[in-house]
């Protein structure tokens, strides 16, 4: 038991979901967990391609290197990609600097996701969340139900025994499925190493232009950063443990420029990977609240 069992369990979950869903889709956020998910999906249905599209909810604030990686992976895997941006939010000019991380995430991610799911009528959505990431995630089922309006009720979760997943839903309801629920951050890195899975280069240390923002290093990825009087970016050797919208994802100073070095650093890390995620620490229980409202 080890990696092989984790891999087999995830493939079993992906197949069970596909066998019972009417219209499934896989969330694709371009990060390392999404990369592992896509790899697992390809293995699950080989020699056929995965029988569902990928959905990228694009806030328009992702790192440029992420968009490049996305195009490459779509080309190589032959999977169909759907991208969705909240057009009303875009027209209103919603962004993390002008509206704050909470509002930006709600409009451009949570609301955008609900729009995309409703528009395409997806009844089952794969997500790459892991139980070791955050406390409310540790409580979530592998097959997690959403009522009409995509709401999660943490107090009324269906019992989930053995590997027998109840996949039945009523009209208008949907299921979020988390195939890598039981993986840890270290498992993800080991699997990437073992399977030689391509990931965005931002995970490796390099000289990058950064500024100090709310006590953390933010990479200035385009000209939307609101420099204060006299402020300017400095070059530092940094990398990212987790990837999201560039203004909401803090870089860490690091020398780790190979996969091996990144793993070594992860093994000795004193902070959790979500430390660099600004939306988790907005207020106590903030992830649970976002999830109840429809966030992944």
């Amino acid at each position, binding site marked *: 038991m080890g990696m092989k069992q984790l891999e*087999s*369990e995830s493939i*079993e979950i992906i*197949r069970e979901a596909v066998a019972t869903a009417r219209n499934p889709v896989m969330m694709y956020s371009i990060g390392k967990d999404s990369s592992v998910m896509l790899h697992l999906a390809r293995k699950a249905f080989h020699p056929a391609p995965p029988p569902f599209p990928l959905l990228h909810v694009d806030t328009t604030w992702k790192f440029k290197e992420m968009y490049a990686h996305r195009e490459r992976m779509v080309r190589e895997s032959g999977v169909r990609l759907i991208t969705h941006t909240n057009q009303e939010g875009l027209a209103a000019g919603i962004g993390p600097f002008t509206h704050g991380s909470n509002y930006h995430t709600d409009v451009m991610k949570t609301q955008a996701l609900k729009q995309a799911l409703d528009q395409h009528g997806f009844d089952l959505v794969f997500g790459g969340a892991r139980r070791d990431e955050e406390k409310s995630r540790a*409580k979530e089922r592998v097959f997690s139900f959403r009522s009409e309006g995509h709401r999660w009720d943490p*107090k009324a979760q269906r019992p989930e025994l*053995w590997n*027998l997943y109840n996949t*039945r839903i009523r009209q208008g309801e949907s299921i979020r499925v988390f195939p890598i629920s039981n993986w840890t951050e270290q498992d993800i890195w080991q699997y990437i*190493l073992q399977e030689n899975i391509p990931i965005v280069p931002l995970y490796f240390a390099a000289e990058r232009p950064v500024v100090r923002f709310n006590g953390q290093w933010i990479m200035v990825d385009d000209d939307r950063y609101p420099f204060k009087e006299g402020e300017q970016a400095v070059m530092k050797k940094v990398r990212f443990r987790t990837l999201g919208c560039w203004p909401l994802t803090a870089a860490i100073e690091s020398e780790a420029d190979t996969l091996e070095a990144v793993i070594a650093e992860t093994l000795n890390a004193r902070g959790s990977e979500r430390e660099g995620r600004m939306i988790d620490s907005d207020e106590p229980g903030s992830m649970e609240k976002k999830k109840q409202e429809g966030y992944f």
Partner: protein
Amino acid sequence: MAQEGTREVDAFVKAQTDRQTLRFITCGSVDDGKSTLIGRLLYESKNIFDDQLKALESDSKRYGTQGERVDLALLVDGLQAEREQGITIDVAYRFFATDKRRFIVADTPGHEQYTRNMATGASTAHVAVILVDARKGVLVQTRRHSRIVSMMGIRQVVLAVNKMDLVGYDEKVFRAIESDYRAFAADLGFEGLRSIPLSGLDGDNVINRSERMSWYSGPSLLGCLESVEIEEGSNMGPFRMPVQLVNRPDLDFRGFCGRISNGTVRPGDAVRVLPGGVRTTVKAVIDGFEAVEAADAGTSVTITLDDEVDASRGDVLVGADTPAEVADQFEARLLWMAEHAMSPGRQYLLKSACKEVTATVTGIKYREDVDTGAHLAAKTLELNGIGTVHLSTSAPIVFEPYARDRVLGSFILIDKLTFETVGAGMIQFALRRASNIHWQALEVDRGARAQLKHQTPRCIWFTGLSGSGKSTIASLLEKQLHAEGKHTYLLDGDNVRHGLNRDLGFTEADRVENIRRVAEVAKLMVDAGLVVIVSFISPFRSERRMARDLFAEGEFIEVFVDTPLEECERRDVKGLYAKARRGELTNFTGIDSAYEEPQAPEVHVRTMRSTVEESVEQVIRSLT
């Protein structure tokens, strides 16, 4: 640096590959300190990051129950409601690792009302850590959880006598609880039962041996978890793989995807496809992107077969000479997990391996007293009840007894209307009755009988509150049909209760049985070529659905006689509402028992708007 990093990574990869994962649960009564103990394990095995510690400190100030000290339980209780109430509602999965093993721990709730969440955690665990508060000893909930642990097939149990700090680390207290528990657990089938005195709050005997309890010579809790034997699905047993889906991207490839639940499979192996039993040979075993020489239990694979055999989702591939059993009637142990009690006769969806069928609990053999284990007679199974039941399925399923195979021996029951998971079951053995009684195919069939009568047989099912006017409309309908030369029969609720169903009362279980018998009688009569009119309150949707499922498409006409409760009560022809209001009648529909209105009846009669004649007319129109 780089080289040192590489060496460290090599060591990590090797350790990751070699280290086994142990899944365990912590269970026991409320306030026995489960969450605190897990918090302690995470904290002391250095599996907490700095930012998580910082958050813990601020959470402790806000929600903590430990005064100035950090409250380690808050590391585990992740839901806002849990932190606010200081209790655990749902199972939480936490991950930690030591040099010897990786651990997945399921922290399960102690409150009785959340027992189903505890069962969720237990179903995938290798080991159960059962906590007991040293001050309180073995409680009802300790025994309930121990029974569920035993029922789920967990054989390795650690009895953790917690809060030793509050009893002065007294050996006598510990020994008394230990012998108490051993006496209780004697017939639960635990192979390994170890007892450890500890303090989750202070950490005694959690990671390291405690100096304050030098009288105890056994291992610490972590030491125990690092060394206990892990039982896995065996590679030595007979090959079994439930087919999850058939992968058929083009005409040249047809692969059967699934996860091997037992045994090993190799190209060239002779296999059978159950329940059909067709024999064939394995052509290739594909693991991920590669064709492999062999695959073991627990591996997800795609198998191709030599012949163009017909196999689909829910079938099971088995070793040709070691097939599993196939049956449609079982004895099973059942844990009931819904607020709504389980009534025999009602239909549920049963999911086992990858197969979904309709199932009926045909009888409750007995329910178990959680405290004593005594077998008690029961007509229903309430929330969190455990019982041994007989089940009958709409199609044969492939199975193994749960004690031999957790995958082919387990099932869940799903409510047909709400789709909630309502029961968890473990198959014990097949009942042989079914295979011996075959439906007699007769020369004179229903078509022939109907032709002779020059009519289309039907079941016209009236449902509605008592006093809504069902019987009045039904008898006028019969009169008119009779006048038109139709052969009819009217089955009336009150009349049937004087004869066929006079042994039944008005509890929910009896009402379900009442309807089942009437539906079966109606079916025989329709088979005989009659137009059958049934007039029954039949308050529950699931029973009307069960009746409907007995008939062919279009043969069953549901007539909803819709009269407001106030009007029925005003009419009160039989004086029953008055009695029910006085409390002289219990389980009276509309008063203290629910009436579930039909959602899409074939005929909807609103008696406040139409006369009896018009209503009859409405029904007759629906027959043509």
